């Protein structure tokens, strides 16, 4: 039974959790914009946050062991946090302008890492330190050592859940970022102040005079509340001024998928989400919308003219940028248009050309607001044409539209003679290895499912695929005739565009490069072969390649579980920054997966040395070696749980579909499992804690991760969405549970080696966070994209297995 401190102490821990979670989510979303929505940065931002919180908890140990006035210190820290949070938010918006970064430029990995680590230091340190101090306060009010650690941990976790759900379900829809952050900081300060006022605990009492002063300052700070809107708008404007100068910021919309910004220059409106340019389109006042939206017109007409009689169409994405409008000029009977973000559709309708808005109301069109993958998987309907007009696979979520599994689902949903069309960014001669790898991957993945694939284009590479070779044509004459037959006005879209798109020289070159690159081992490590000068025609190229060596599936087939196209896109972005991290990424692909085991081998080696030292002198080295084993176990728990969580979220998104609230709920379930695990361990340990139990938990975790490694890829075959959700909820809850058991066990064992409560707690908490930090960055940046989900889970398994071995080896007594 947890011995209960006064409710107010629990409330303080709870509100620390709420505040921490709210602050983390808000700042993460803001920083993502600064980095142009680069998903890599999520791993780095999380890692920086976790790292500083970990260091903060160590700092907290130092503070807690001094004879400090607890209440005073905590209150001062809370007030400092109240200040620091909005300042951090403001700085993150002004970051680009402050460093004079050119508009439109992607920041390199190193730049992102440095700015995150500098920016997140103050709030991370404060929150981490406060955790350890609250543990001390809890202990002093109950007199129980270990339950104070577990109790604080659990309350904080509960606070995290509450904070997360509050944000997703309520706050993001109504409040701007500054208001949310002021709310977060204010909540903690208010709870602490109240606690201090009404407490009976001697540890938390404060002299009345000082208290009044504090309260006055608090009230003064709260008056910032009405100013928040002004601060929010001004910082937004300053930020966008440095990101897209001389474009006026017309509107910002808080969508749960990322903040949307609408910018205007003359008669052109550009739509950004999380700082990433989605598309530009002509505005309502524009007379030039046909010229302005040319790209979407080319996309639409190229697709539609390939099919002899396209009546049933499925369009995923791109409708509001004009593709839908152009498709409807053809004799379409039924069109299903899928768009994920309702807020984007709504805000775009206010600004794009009237003709585009009208196309949404066309009686032939059914607008369906859902995740495209989810729709295709569940739909029983078949189509003549499926067109995907989505952004490049630059995020894990976008990668799902370019995988083997998706193409299989698409192929099943096509009528006989049906075709599939998609596009991706490319360069003039496909020379760089990253972009060539990425586009060759897209080509080969398509080619593995469809019988006939034709890539065409230059800056924008279009892929058209079908099951019969007679249907997909590179004859521009045929396409032109169809366009004219369908009575599409020449002034709208000239048939000559097909001559441009299918210009023989460019077409042969692109086809040659894409068809040849990726055949044979290790071809992804060097740039693609340049094509010979006199190239065979497309038909001959296809015939030749069917006799050639097989495609290196490991590096050139994109799958839901091994998102290699996503990885290459990240390398490509990195290459654009011309920084050394591009080279680093390339080196990463040289890495043999088994090398991931190397650090664990090092850890084992250390253990052997320590064991030898213990044999030599048990007194000095005994405690040290036990603590090493315990720290390593805690580190690997943090590491493997985070790694597994990244992999799980990735798979869930792939299998279930990207629905923001579901992802939030899954994370909340993890925390619930965590709390339950901690409570359960609390109930059972008491004085029974010893390293062997911890070792057994590590073993269970290892086996669990290994099972998931085998099992996760098979989840793709589960058809019922409810089953998928329940399954993933269960798995996540269990992961949280196992993680939760770890904490009180480890703290208890540490305590037994002679360390004080705060010291043990702080050390365990901090080390777990370091592990989680490393896991976040490694899994998000390298493990999942390069090695895939199964290998990621196996790495987690190995981490825990190594911990098991080390504990058994070192902490036997």
């Amino acid at each position: 039974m947890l011995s209960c401190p006064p409710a107010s102490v629990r409330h303080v821990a709870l509100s620390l959790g709420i505040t921490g979670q709210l602050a983390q989510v808000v700042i993460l979303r803001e920083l993502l914009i600064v980095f142009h929505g680069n998903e890599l940065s999520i791993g780095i931002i999380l890692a920086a946050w976790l790292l500083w919180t970990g260091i903060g908890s160590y700092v907290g140990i130092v503070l807690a062991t001094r004879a400090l006035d607890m209440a005073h210190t905590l209150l001062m820290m809370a007030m400092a946090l109240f200040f620091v949070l909005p300042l951090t938010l403001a700085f993150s918006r002004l970051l680009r302008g402050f460093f004079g970064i050119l508009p439109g430029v992607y920041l390199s990995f190193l730049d992102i890492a440095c700015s995150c680590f500098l920016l997140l230091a103050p709030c991370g340190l404060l929150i981490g330190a406060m955790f350890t101090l609250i543990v001390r306060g809890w202990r002093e009010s109950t007199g129980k050592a270990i339950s104070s650690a577990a109790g604080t941990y659990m309350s904080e976790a509960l606070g995290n859940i509450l904070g997360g759900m509050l944000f997703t379900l309520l706050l993001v829809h109504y409040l701007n970022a500054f208001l949310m952050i002021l709310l977060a900081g204010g909540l903690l300060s208010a709870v602490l102040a109240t606690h201090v006022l009404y407490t009976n605990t001697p540890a938390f009492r404060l002299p009345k005079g000082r208290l009044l002063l504090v309260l006055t300052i608090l009230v003064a700070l709260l008056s910032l509340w009405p100013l928040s809107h002004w601060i929010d708008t001004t910082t937004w404007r300053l930020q966008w001024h440095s990101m897209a100068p001389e474009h006026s910021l017309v509107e910002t919309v808080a969508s749960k998928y990322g903040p949307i910004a609408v910018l205007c220059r003359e008669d052109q409106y550009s739509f950004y989400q999380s700082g990433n340019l989605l598309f530009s389109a002509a505005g309502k006042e524009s007379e030039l919308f046909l010229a302005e939206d040319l790209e979407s017109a080319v996309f639409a007409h190229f697709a539609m003219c390939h099919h002899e009689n396209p009546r049933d169409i499925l369009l995923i994405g791109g409708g509001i940028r004009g593709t839908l409008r152009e498709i409807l000029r053809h004799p379409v009977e039924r069109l299903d248009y899928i768009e994920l973000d309702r807020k984007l559709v709504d805000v775009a309708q206010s600004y794009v050309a009237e003709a585009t808005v009208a196309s949404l109301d066309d009686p032939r069109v059914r607008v369906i607001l859902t995740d495209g993958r989810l729709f295709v998987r569940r739909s029983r309907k078949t189509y003549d044409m499926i067109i995907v007009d989505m952004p490049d696979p630059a995020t894990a979520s976008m990668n799902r539209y370019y995988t083997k599994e998706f193409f299989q689902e698409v192929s099943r949903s096509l009528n006989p003679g049906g075709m599939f069309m998609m596009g991706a960014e490319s360069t003039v001669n496909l020379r760089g290895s990253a972009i060539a790898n990425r586009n060759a991957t897209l080509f080969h993945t398509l080619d593995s499912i469809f019988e006939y694939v034709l890539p065409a284009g230059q800056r924008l590479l279009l892929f058209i695929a079908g099951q019969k070779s007679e249907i997909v044509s590179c004859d521009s004459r045929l396409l032109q005739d169809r366009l004219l037959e369908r009575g599409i006005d020449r002034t709208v879209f000239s048939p000559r565009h097909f001559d441009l798109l299918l210009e023989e020289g460019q077409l042969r070159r692109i086809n040659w490069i894409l068809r040849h690159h990726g055949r044979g081992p290790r071809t992804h490590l060097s740039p693609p072969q340049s094509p010979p000068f006199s190239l065979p025609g497309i038909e001959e190229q296809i015939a030749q390649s069917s006799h050639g060596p097989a495609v290196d599936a490991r590096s050139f087939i994109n799958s839901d579980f091994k998102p290699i196209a996503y990885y290459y896109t990240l390398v490509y972005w990195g290459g654009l920054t011309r920084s050394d991290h591009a080279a680093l990424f390339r080196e990463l692909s040289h890495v043999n997966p088994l090398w991931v085991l190397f650090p664990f081998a090092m850890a084992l080696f250390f253990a052997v040395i320590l064991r030898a030292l213990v044999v030599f002198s048990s007194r000095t080295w005994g405690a040290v070696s036990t603590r090493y084993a315990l720290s390593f176990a805690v580190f690997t728990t943090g590491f493997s749980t985070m790694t597994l969580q990244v992999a799980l979220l990735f798979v869930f998104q792939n299998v279930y579909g990207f629905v923001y609230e579901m992802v939030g709920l899954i994370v909340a379930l993890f925390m619930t499992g965590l709390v339950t695990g901690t409570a359960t361990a609390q109930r059972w340990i008491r004085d029974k804690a010893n390293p062997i139990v911890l070792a057994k938990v590590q073993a269970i975790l290892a086996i669990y991760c290994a099972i998931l490694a085998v099992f996760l890829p098979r989840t793709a075959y589960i058809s019922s969405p409810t089953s998928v959700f329940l399954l993933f909820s269960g798995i996540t809850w269990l992961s949280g549970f196992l993680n939760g058991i770890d904490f009180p066990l480890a703290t208890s064992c540490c305590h037994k080696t002679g360390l004080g409560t705060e010291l043990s707690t702080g050390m365990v908490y901090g080390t777990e966070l370091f592990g989680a930090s490393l896991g976040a960055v490694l899994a998000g940046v390298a493990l999942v994209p390069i090695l895939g989900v199964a290998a990621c889970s196996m790495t987690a398994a190995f981490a825990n297995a190594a911990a098991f071995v080390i504990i058994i080896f070192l902490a036997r007594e």
Partner: protein
Amino acid sequence: MLYIAVLLALLSVMMPLNSHRNNLPRRKFLRRGVGTLCSLGMAGQLAAKDNSPLQTARLGLIKAKRSPWFKALENGSISCELCPRRCRLAPGQRGFCRVRENREGECYTLVYGNPALIQNDPIERKPFFHVLPGSRALSISTAGCNMECKFCEVWDMALVAPEEVYAYDVPPHAVVRYAREANAQSISYAFGEPVVFYEYVHSIATHAKNDSLLNLLHTNGYISPSPLKALCDRLDAVNLDLKAFDDTFYRDICGGELNPVLASLQLLNKEGIHVEITNILIPSMNDHPDTLRKMCRWICHELGPNVPLHFGRFYPLYKLANLPPTPVSTLERSREIAMEEGLKFVYLARVAGHKAESTFCPNCGTAVIERLGFVVENNLLKDGKCPCGEPVPGRWKA
């Protein structure tokens, strides 16, 4: 012993996992370590049967030749005199352009005969609108560039060292032969930066001239006067990229300078070479009406009102990947400004289908050459004249 067993079990689970996931039998999985030689060999097999050097590009091919464009300094250092950068190179050091090197106190070009790009294109693609419309040109280019524009389209060829690209082995006389075989009427030194492979250009141009092929240059104009002058008697037409009429833009965004480029334009004009100018308009960076007006005024005054000017649309790419494309209305407005300042032939590039891709007679306004992108739809010119009689300046015949 328990833990070793666990480890072994885990290891054995991982191995078949890999091969199963990729549907490859174990044998192929083990072959992974074989190496690139295999793939290169295969690629060679798949290429067309002709064994000419043009058919097989090699990674990192370097063909060095001594260059006369340098000045010897003390201690074996040299000052390269080809472009206004005037790189001072210690022995063994490479210039900013990555393709010129100091070897034992002498300047060597590393790109004499190893083009990374050799392709056959319509002439309108370079873009040359007033030279042999509808004909084909053989384009040739090597790695390297003496500027570093943040909106570079060919950065993966130009802004890299020659060791990092695939190149063909093509001596200058062979270029001309290939051009003839491809039924090209001209050779264009385009896509990369011809200034940095000057010696190669000079040699090919000499052979081309002897064989009645036109020599077309597409350059950034960042070259010293002497080498440019020495090339002029072999040149037939030049398309110069005037990045902006603003030295700050040149320095910050391109890593170059404005004045030497203007000097090149003046020199070309004096030598009587047909010049066309390309200007990519990047929103908020170089599209201000006042600056554009000054630029057009300068062009009209220094080079004459007949110089074709191409305003190109910017699309997000390379280092400016998140900046929106140029609004078409900005392009149209810029064209109006240019025509107000007296320029007669102003085009919009990269807005395929726009009427400003066609050539209009300055007198009667008829569309004498109709174009869509690089496709010529209709050509009404007879002996370089509009049906109304007005001459339209340009190189209409070989």
